[in-house]
Each structure stands twice: as structure tokens, then as C-alpha cells.
């Protein structure tokens, strides 16, 4: 996020130079990707399903839970960016939008008055949506959603970031070509399924928005699997959004059914969902069809790299094998180091000395992407505050791990985190007390103030 600040600052400066040009030049808007008859209407439920795939509900939900009423802040170091009201209310929502206006938002990040939208709205990925899904969405929001007169606080970032024309310039370089190209030809077995998976992941699922690393100007480093860095891990809210492609990462290690189950229920034989991904499961993937989940899993599997993840350059902590860890914990020598001792006292009851937890209930810590993430914020935040699985249709239980921040000092959390990052064959860098202190204060400062989950 600091990086973002710097980049946007630089951008804004350049922006001042070309400001007039930018203000007066009209936007060039992307054309529909398919010629559909003017009276084309989506099948029943198609628009709603496109909304589910795009996870519109997660960001645009009203503070009181009114669907799509908007107003929830999306945290940014420049200040909160408020999600807009996307109900068909003519005054406060998008009721006055024409289909072309709507498409311009989705493809080009331009609203009906020609304002450039902040890229918190993932139009960089939605640019790959089919015209059918665009039309379905438009139909859904205009015809099926209840209007809400919720007036959303206007986003007002500090100068110069409130000069939206900076975004316009950014878009010239940060966006890829619009439209989706099916990457798999008929010669590939399963091409239809894999292409569906590719479409879901690249387009509506906008997985890359979090899981693809960003470059210096905060643009995603790739939008399709042809780009070698596509989906190789990013950062969201200070958490690592894990790499999905390198050998040894979870979607590559798990079988496809387990991957699909994870998206459908937020849990599987190995892991429980955490961080921002929890909201994705809660509002979106739990409602995907089984075929779409399996297509997604198959596609992720297909685009795996054969290269093992590079181990952390700063890692100076020796890694223990599973056997060594089990012996260390089982011996329970009173003289044992602080990290494993804290593990026995706080974690072992659920995650067990083999670090395997219990299928679908207690996540496995061995090989767990949150545990071994390059940026340890997710792990540390989970130790401090606990974490909760979302309630899903098939697995309704909001299983919640309690937080331990109230009883463990920064040093203790650091020791514990370092231990689990290097036990059972895990091999990740040490966490310091200063890291923990920083994460504690970052959590306190966050506007949502995470904390215990409200019901």
C-alpha cells in the first residue's frame, strides 16, 4: 500500500502536466464483444449467476445488509474508497444507466458522467466478460434488484489523488486488451472445461486482482496464463494472496475435487479459508455450480508451473521435518524452546503435533499457504485475533478459532509464528517481535477493526 501511495503520487505529478489534455479529450469506450440482437434477453437466473460469479455482492453490500446499496469502505492508505450504490434507484443508484453506460463501467472503468473510477473496482479483469454476461448483469441490476435510496458517502481522497484524471492515464498503461480469448484449442483434452475455467478465473472471478503480483505502477503483471507471473501471488490488506501456480502451492498440491470443495465450502481436508478470501467464498464461490468449480480447479491445475517456489531469501531458520517436529513436541521437554512450547500450550489441541489438524474442521499447518506466506501478516493476524470460516450451504458452521493476542506478547507470537513456519517441513522466514507489533497496530488502525466477528 505504501508502494501504491508513492506510485500514485508520481502519477499525480505527471498528471498535473497533462491535466488539461486529459480533461478535454473524450473517452474511447470499448465496443460490445459480440453482436447480440437489441431484444436479446438473458435466460432466467443468468444475470444473477453472472453477479455471483463477479462477486458484486461482497463489496457493494450496504452497511445494514441491504444488497447492493453500497457505502462500505474499502481500506486504502489514501483514505477509504466507498463502494457505490448499484441498485436501480435513479437518483442514488444506477437506475439511469444505459446498457452502454453499464458496459463502460465494467470494461473501461468510466461512469455515466465520464468520470474515471478507482481501480478498487476490478474493471481491469471484468474487461474479459462476455457480452452475454454484461447483458445478463445489466438485466439483473435493472430488473431484479430492489432499488435502495442509500446515499453513499462520496469518496474524497486527499489531493492529488482526488484528481481522477490521473486514473485515466494509469489505465492507458495498466489495462490489457478487452475480451476473452479461449486459450485451449480442440487438440487439448477437456478444452471446453478448461476454457470455461480460464474464463471464470481471468474474467468474472477476477482472481488476478489479488493473486497476481503488481508492477511499479500498481498494474497487474499479466491477465492470462501466458504471462508467467499471472496468479503467482499478490498482497491484499497486508496479507499474502497466495501463489496459485508454482509447484507445491495448494491448488497444485490438492486434487481438483478438494480445490473445488475449498471454494464451495471454505474448507477441505487441508485448509480453511481466511482473510479476504473468506468474503469471496461467503458471497460468491459457494454459489457457483459444481461444474464451474471443477472447471476452475482443472484450469488452475493446468496452468501450474513445474518450478518449485523459490525459498525465502532471508530465511535463516532451519526447517524441521515432520518426524523431527512430532518428536520434539511429543517429548515435551520442559527445557524446549519457547516456540514449540507455546505451540503445545496453545495450538496442539486442535492442530495436533503432526500439524495436520482434522479434515474440514481444523486446518492443516504443514504446507499451509497462510502459514508459510512470504508476508507473515495473515499468520500473525490469525494468531492474534483468530479467524472464522464463512457459513456455506453445505458446511454452515462458522467454525472460529479464538484469538491469542490478549495472552501472548509480541515476542511470544513471533517465536510461535517462526516455529510453525519452520515445522513439519515448512520452510519460511522468521517473524520478529517488531513485525508482530506492526501488525497489531495495523489491525487496530484498520477501519473495519476486524476483531471478533459480528453475527
Amino acid at each position, binding site marked *: 500500500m505504501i508502494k501504491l501511495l508513492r506510485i500514485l503520487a508520481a502519477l499525480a505529478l505527471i498528471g498535473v502536466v497533462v491535466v488539461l489534455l486529459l480533461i478535454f479529450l473524450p473517452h474511447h469506450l470499448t465496443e460490445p464483444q459480440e453482436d447480440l440482437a437489441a431484444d436479446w434477453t438473458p435466460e432466467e437466473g443468468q444475470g444473477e449467476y453472472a453477479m455471483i460469479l463477479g462477486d458484486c455482492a461482497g463489496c457493494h453490500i450496504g452497511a445494514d445488509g441491504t444488497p447492493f446499496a453500497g457505502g462500505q469502505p474499502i481500506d486504502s492508505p489514501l483514505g477509504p474508497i466507498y463502494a457505490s450504490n448499484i441498485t436501480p434507484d435513479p437518483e442514488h443508484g444506477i437506475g439511469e444507466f444505459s446498457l452502454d453506460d453499464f458496459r463502460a463501467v465494467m470494461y473501461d472503468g468510466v461512469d455515466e458522467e465520464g468520470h474515471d473510477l478507482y481501480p478498487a473496482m476490478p474493471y481491469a479483469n471484468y474487461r474479459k466478460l462476455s457480452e452475454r454476461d454484461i447483458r445478463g448483469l445489466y438485466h439483473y441490476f435493472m430488473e431484479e434488484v430492489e432499488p435502495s435510496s442509500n446515499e453513499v458517502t462520496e469518496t474524497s481522497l486527499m489531493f492529488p489523488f482526488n484528481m481522477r484524471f490521473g486514473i485515466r492515464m494509469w489505465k492507458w498503461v495498466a489495462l490489457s486488451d478487452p475480451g476473452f480469448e479461449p486459450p485451449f484449442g480442440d487438440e487439448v483434452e477437456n478444452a471446453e472445461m478448461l476454457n470455461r475455467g480460464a474464463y471464470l478465473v481471468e474474467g468474472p472471478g477476477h482472481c488476478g486482482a489479488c493473486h497476481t503480483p503488481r508492477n511499479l505502477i500498481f498494474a497487474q503483471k499479466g491477465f492470462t496464463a501466458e504471462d508467467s507471473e499471472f496468479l503467482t501471488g499478490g498482497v491484499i490488506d497486508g496479507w499474502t494472496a497466495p501463489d496459485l501456480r508454482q509447484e507445491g502451492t495448494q491448488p497444485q498440491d490438492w486434487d481438483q475435487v478438494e480445490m473445488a470443495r475449498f471454494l464451495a465450502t471454505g474448507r477441505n481436508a487441508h485448509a480453511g479459508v481466511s482473510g479476504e478470501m473468506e468474503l469471496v467464498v461467503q458471497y460468491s464461490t459457494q454459489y457457483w455450480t459444481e461444474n464451474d468449480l471443477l472447471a476452475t480447479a482443472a484450469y488452475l491445475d493446468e496452468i501450474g508451473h513445474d518450478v518449485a517456489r523459490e525459498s525465502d531469501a532471508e530465511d535463516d531458520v532451519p526447517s524441521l521435518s515432520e518426524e523431527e517436529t512430532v518428536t520434539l513436541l511429543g517429548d515435551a521437554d520442559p527445557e524446549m524452546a519457547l516456540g514449540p512450547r507455546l505451540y503445545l500450550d496453545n495450538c496442539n489441541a*486442535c492442530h495436533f503435533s503432526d500439524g495436520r489438524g*482434522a479434515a474440514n*474442521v*481444523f486446518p492443516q499447518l504443514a504446507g499451509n499457504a497462510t502459514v508459510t506466506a512470504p508476508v507473515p501478516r495473515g499468520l500473525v493476524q490469525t494468531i492474534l485475533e483468530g479467524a472464522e470460516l464463512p*457459513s456455506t450451504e453445505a458446511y*454452515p458452521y*462458522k467454525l472460529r478459532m479464538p484469538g491469542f493476542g490478549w495472552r501472548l506478547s509480541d515476542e511470544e507470537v513471533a517465536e510461535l509464528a517462526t516455529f510453525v513456519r519452520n515445522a513439519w517441513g515448512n520452510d519460511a522466514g522468521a517473524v520478529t517481535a517488531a513485525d508482530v507489533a506492526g501488525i497489531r497496530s495495523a489491525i487496530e488502525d484498520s477501519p473495519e477493526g476486524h476483531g471478533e466477528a459480528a453475527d
Partner: protein
Amino acid sequence: MARQDPKKDVVIVGLGWTGSILGMELSKEGVEILALERGEDRKTVPDFAYPNMIDELKYGIRYGTMQKPKNSTVTIRRTLDETALPYRHLGSFLPGDGVGGAGVHWNGHTWRPMENEFRLRSYVEENWGAEIIPEDMQIQDWGVTYEELEPHFDRFEWMAGISGQAGNVNGEMIEGGNPFEAPRSRGYPLPPLQQTADAEMFAEAARAMGLHPFPRPGANASEAYRNEYGMQLGPCNFCGFCERYGCINYSKGSPQTCVLDALKRKPNFQYKTNSEVLRVTLADDGKTATGVIYWDEEAGEEVFQPADIVILGAYSLHNVHLMLLSGIGQPYDPATGEGVTGRNYAYQMNGGTSMFFKDVDFNPFIGSGTVGMSIDDYAINQIDFGAEGFIGGSYITAGRANGQPIRGIALPSGTPGWGAEWKQGIGEWYGHSMSIGSHGSNMSYRDVYLDLDPTYTDKHGRPMMRMTFNWKDNDIRMTQFMKSKIEPVAESMNPDLMQSSYKGDGAMYDVRPYQTTHNVGGAPMGADPSTSAINRYLQSWDVHNVFVMGASAFPQNIQYNPTGAVGALAYWAAEAIRKDYMPNPRPLV
């Protein structure tokens, strides 16, 4: 003036085991349901979160999760000529309070009564004649058979994630299970827990004497589990803080782990906490209920909640109290033996033998609510009542349920309770003792019952409920019989010291030590409206839109812990309400 809220189709009183099950099942009909729970909301995290729950002083001794007598209690007397006094300090039994009810802090022993327990009077009369039934004993048939309930036992066991070993599946006997159990349609959903050393020693000794030990069944998950509602359990870690505690580990079957998050997703289900139901309101002709009056703690006012169906799921004692306060069923009168509400209250007759072994280290900090081995060789269907001179039976069992340091350390009798000698005793015997217990039936009697207290009122100004209960010769003979069977097994294990504790002649009910929270009867079910308060579908005979869940339905106590039967009856009643009553509301019998 009471506030009146919009009408609901169904009001459920209490959100413990039975309230949760009824909520889940009835919600499938699409009806609007409101559950009213008098206590706080409770969730595993934060309410039972590790490590704060592992506090024996707060929860084990000071009853942190239970009903507070200042808010709700009963008065107790032992005989008709005593004056009942309020049960001001919990001891003998520990009713629950708050979402989950006693299902939060139970141990989890989950049994099915034997086939003949459901038709006990008929069974005794057919085999020995009515003359062996003591004059003041009021045992009755339940009006429902084991066979009818079997699918519902199965539902409950698979919902609550019971670990155990079947002994009889559809008549096929299975090695290692209970050979005396009634046939079940399939095995338990989870394998038995791994046994503790005391249980293994007991089982070995019992086997050597030709007895038939089997793992006792219980709601502590031996493996990760997901039930029919999608709810989940994690494997029990043998924390030893089970009974009296909420499970820290999502491992004990409870309304929280097995029902509630699934139920909360239902748009037609709502629940309100801190809402104590004061009484059920009846229509002018007294034949139907119009709803309930409850105390809304937050608003600080009484509320009239109209409803078409009222489900009492408030725990046996409170169900009967609400019926007495609301005029549902004629109150029982011990002088005439007439009336049904309050009739046939019963309890549980237990005993035990402790053993001390200098050279055995039991690692007593490892324990789980229901880990252990049991025998049913002296069960109700194995005893010749005519020859032995009593009606009843027990299961006998050993296993480390309690791993807690304060109440969990047994000392040889005569050891002082404090000071240097106590310390020395602890040093010498900690980790070196085990016990074998008997858990037995308790019959119902003419002068053992529940009614409204003539003197004491509760904080809402309502008369408190009075319990008249004492031990009777029949049941004392039964427990003495168990002593004569357990002591030889214990002796065969060659302990250094051994001591027994079974009720003897003239034993009077003492409310101070904990015995069990298996308060049953008071609203017995049956086929005859003159001796039962509710019919075989748990429907009030008099007020047909009131259904009364819980162990209050038992006409006398079974030899087992009640909740297996309570759960099965809840599913059985729920099915009758859904399929038979809702389409055509009327007395079902």
C-alpha cells in the same frame, strides 16, 4: 399492559437440545418460528474459548454455565409432611441456562433404553405378575415402543456424532459391542474413543469373570465428523474438562456444534435471548394455547407472543413448571392419586466403588466425557425381578471422564479435606485411583411428584415449583445388588485399597452432593389420559397445540442417561407435528 408482538406459527420455549432439534425440523415446513431462550447467547468462540473455559473453580465449582438459583430454582422436600425449602445452592442437579441449555455442559453419554423399559409395567406383569409391584409404585408403559422410536434414535445419534461400538445391528450380533442392546438399524457414526487405562483394566477383569464389556457410547467425537445438517465436530482431545464445561474444541455434540449455525441460516427461524417465558396463554375454553407471555429483559417488559403451536423445550423441570403455571393438564394430587401434571417425577440411582493402586499410574489428566468401558450384564432385561426382590437395573462402567484437578482427585476415606495430611494424601494418591460406577433406574411412586409451592415465589412473583422426592426401598435394593456385583470385579483387580459408596437402608435424599441432572417425569407420556399428561406424540391431552419435549415425558426413569431417549422423542414428535398435526391441527390420539 403487556406488549403484543406479531403472531408466529410456532413458538419454541428454550433453545437447548430439544428446542434446537424442533426448530431445525419444523423450519423445513416453511413456517415462521420464534425460539425464546431465557439465558444469554452462547457460541464456542468466544464463550467456551480455550483457555478460559479450562477453569475448574469458575465452571466446575461455581457453576459458570448453569442456572443461577436466584433467577430460577425449585423448593425441595423429601416427604409429604416436610416443609419444602428453596434449593438455594446448586448441588444434586445442575440445569442449564442460555443457548444450548444443558446440552452445552453435559458429558455426552448417549444411550438407548432397552425395549422392555418402554413397556415396563406390561413387562413386569407378564413375567412376574402385578403383585411384585410395590403398592406405592406407579410405573407405566410409555405408549410408544422401541421399534417405533428406532429410526429416531438413529437420527439423533447420527446428528450428534456419537462414538461407539454397535452390538446388535438388525439382529446380527457384533463382537465387542453390547450383546444385550436392542437391535439398531446401523452402527454408530463414529468408532469408539481410544480407551484410558482404568477402562482397559476394568474390561479385562470383567471379561475374566465372564461378563461382556463394550465401549460406552458418547457424544465426544473420536474423529472429525459432519452431520446431516452439514454441522461439524473435530476430534476430541481428551481435555478432561467435559461435564460442566462448554467444549473448547468443537468435539462434543451439542446444539452449538450440531444444529445452531445451520438453523440460523433459515430465514423463517428467529430466536431471542434473555426472554424468559412466564406462562402459556390459553383460549377461553382452555382447549388450545394462544401463545406465550414472556419477560423481555432488554425492553424490561412483558410481551404477549401469539402463536399457533407452542413447543415446550425448557428442560424437564421447567416444562412441568410452565404447565402447572398455565393450567395445562390437571395438577397431580398424591392424596387421591389423581391428576397428571407433576405426576411420576423420578431421578437416577447411582453408586460406585473406588480403588487405589500404589503401582499403577493412570495419567488422570487424560480424560473425555464418555471414554470408558461398560457392561450391561445386570441391566433391566437381565435381572429376575421376582427372585431379586426389586424392579430395575443398572449399567456398570469405568472410564476417566473427569481430568480436573480439584474434584478429580479421589482420596482414601478418612483423609482430611485440608492441611498437611491432605497434602500428603494428594502426593501419595494422585494418579493412582480409579472407580467403577453403577448407573441405574429409579421407579416412580405415588408420593414422589412436582407441584406449585404454597409459600415461595420466584423473581417474577410466580409460585416456585416444589419437588417431593425421596429414595425408596425398591431402588435401594437395586443399588445394593449392584454393589454385590461390582465389588467382586474390583477385588479381582487387586487394589491396595478399595471403598464403596451405595445408598443403604433408610437413605434419605441429600441435595448437596452432585448426583445427576437426570430429572425425569412430571409430564409423563402414555396411552391413558388419566395417568399421563401427554400422549405418545408428546402432545398435551388437554391443549392440543402444546407439545412437551424432554425427559419430563418419562413415566419412570430408565437405567441410562436420558438424552438419547430425549433426542429420539424429539425427532419422533417433530415428525408427527410436521406430517400429521400441521396439515390438520387436532388431538392426534
